[in-house]
């Protein structure tokens, strides 16, 4: 496994320290508020850049004490090996508790049926594994790294968002959320989803990674990879991505803009090997990160809203 460690270089245009400081202060306030209000929160960690930022914010909110919550990863079994290794190392460095809930286990237990075929993705199955883990561990709040700029229905999310007994989100019945006085009350069986970096953009996350000198999994930076081109996206050439007739793998220099399941996350052609180069590419890109690299959001006009209603993150 390789990871690229990058230290802060020049602050790239258009994002001042004041903005990041304001966003950081807001996120820390949200984390401390949740810790004060709920008994059994958990931080959802995917190994992606947004949840890596969450871990740093949790350090800033709670050190020199321990985190008042464990860290949980929903492993589809189709995650990038680099990301899984990074996850284990990062959480161990922090000395915090890691819980891995596995979609493989859900399949073995008969909770979900695996999907097969060239376009099969376990992305949707994760919701069942997540909700089972929440019920089993009696978590009453999940901290996530979702941002409002990612996607249409996420733009409608509260910072403290209630999920019903079935993990469902009812976007028409959201609680009013006034000032920063958060209502974190839930009834037994319900839980909260809490989003400390709601108001951050993709660029804010990169600027913060740069400023804090955070390490990211190597797949965020340009590397040679064997890929398949499908529907205008580059998929990893890997046994879990079944080829369609006529698809020929080829090698090219790519990086990932988001990190999800291999079966639904695309790479972009890139030679950006440092944070500064990635930021420069993103600053001029004319396509959003989910539009460019996430097959799961392309299914329909409201694909994300529909998954969120079922308990997806």
């Amino acid at each position, binding site marked *: 496994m390789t990871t690229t460690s990058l230290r802060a270089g020049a602050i790239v245009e*258009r994002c*001042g320290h*004041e*903005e990041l*400081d*304001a966003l*950081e*202060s*807001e996120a*820390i*306030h949200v984390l*401390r*508020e949740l*810790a*004060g209000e709920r008994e059994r929160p958990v931080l959802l960690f995917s190994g992606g850049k947004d949840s890596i930022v969450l871990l740093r914010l949790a350090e*800033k*909110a*709670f*050190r*020199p*004490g*321990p985190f008042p919550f464990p860290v949980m990863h929903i492993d589809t079994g189709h995650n990038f090996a680099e990301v899984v290794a990074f996850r284990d190392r990062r959480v161990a460095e922090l000395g915090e508790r890691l819980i891995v809930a596995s979609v493989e286990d859900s399949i073995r237990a008969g909770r979900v049926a695996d999907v097969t075929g060239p376009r099969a993705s376990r992305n949707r199955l994760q919701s069942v594994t997540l909700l089972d883990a929440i019920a089993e561990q009696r978590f009453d709040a999940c901290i996530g790294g979702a941002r*409002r*700029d990612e*996607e*249409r*229905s996420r*733009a*409608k999310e*509260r910072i403290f968002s209630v999920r019903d007994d079935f993990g469902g989100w009812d*976007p*028409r019945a*959201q*609680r*009013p*959320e*006034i*000032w*920063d*006085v958060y*209502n974190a*009350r*839930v*009834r037994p069986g319900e839980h909260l989803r809490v989003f400390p970096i*709601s*108001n951050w*953009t993709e660029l804010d996350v990169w600027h913060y990674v740069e400023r804090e000198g955070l390490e990211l999994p190597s797949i965020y930076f340009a590397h040679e990879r064997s890929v398949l081109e499908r529907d205008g996206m580059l998929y990893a050439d890997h046994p879990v991505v079944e080829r369609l007739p006529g698809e020929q793998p080829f090698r090219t220099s790519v990086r990932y803009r988001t990190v999800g399941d291999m079966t639904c996350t695309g790479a972009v052609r890139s030679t950006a090997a440092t944070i500064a180069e990635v930021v420069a590419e993103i600053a001029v*890109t*004319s*396509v*959003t990160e989910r*539009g*460019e690299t996430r097959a799961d959001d392309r299914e329909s*006009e*409201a694909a994300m*809203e529909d998954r969120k209603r079922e308990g997806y993150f």
Partner: protein
Amino acid sequence: MADLLRLATCGSVDDGKSTLIGRLLHDTRQIADDQIEHLQAVSARRGSELDLALLTDGLRAEREQGITIDVAYRQLRIAGRRIVLADCPGHEQYTRNMVTGASTADAAVLLVDARHGVVTQTRRHLAICATLRVPRVVVAVNKMDLVGWRPEPFVSIEAEVASLAGALGAAVPTCVPLSALTGDHVVVPSESLDWHDGPPLAELLARLPADGADRDGPLRMPVQWVLRPAGGAGGGRRFAGRLARGAVRAGDEIVALPSGLRARVVAVEMPGGEVESAAAPASVALRLDRELDIARGDVVCAVADAPTPRRELAATVCWMHERPARAGARLLVKHGTRTTRAIVERIDGRLDLGSLAAVPAGALEVNDLGRVALRLAAPLAADDFAACRATGAFILIDEATNATVAAGMVG
């Protein structure tokens, strides 16, 4: 570097809020290619031209009905200025969501349809902005294309808005004529509106000061969390919270309310490490010179100017629940980081949107603005909302359903 501006857009349904935001994003080239393609595809399916409102109306139900139900948050940049925008619904039924969007705003853009002028919902939103003390309000008089670009409708709306603001005790809003549909005077100045003597909306927004005045004053910090180092390393407990107002520096004497315990600050810790001093709205952790029984829910205040904890509150509330507020109701009040029980002692009237005067009321219905007297189970270290928004604000929660039923402002 200009400050980050939190902006809310409001106004009556069909006044064109979502279209205006779409226009701002489009004309400042902030819509990504895949979003444009998506809009074109969906617009074509619906048999319309490029419908910019679909950019912010993200929920199925919103697209189906062509209305905004809940607040959508968008990021935009105008002339270098970072704006976090809350696009609020106009429907009376979703007023609680408008309150959500306006509560965190440094400024609000209130849309008025030039053909219809000031309507009840305009009055309601102006009153809410005034009550929430949104620091600046800009009135965008939209659909000027549909009144033939004539100045008369604009001038009369401008006069009426000024008189309403006067009645509400709020500053007179700046009014801007424009058309979100055609883009006139949104980002670029309009020839059709050359009789108007002000900049286009975008320019106005780029120059609006973010609110800072409310952050200055004697220290207030609700304690969120007590940090206990593992194994006692790093010397003792820290009291963590976000500075709601004022600044704190090592050596300051503070008082924790409601207990009244006093101590001196030994060190101020910020996320990056120890600092000489920190100012609102920073998140900090304070080390004190003695072990005091301070906990979540307490408010750390400047000794020289601390509020007297109160067991009775007179307050203005935005009532947001279908079940009306009546005298005798038992609720939870969450103020800062403290939650306590409250009883509604009296309803002291509601705001009549027609006359903008307080009228007697036996109950507050959903979407009413009214005055209440609350009796509390435990004292709260509250300021008047007019003196400090952060420590003058509270929410009311129905304990049985956990619903947030009201936004409250002390004083």
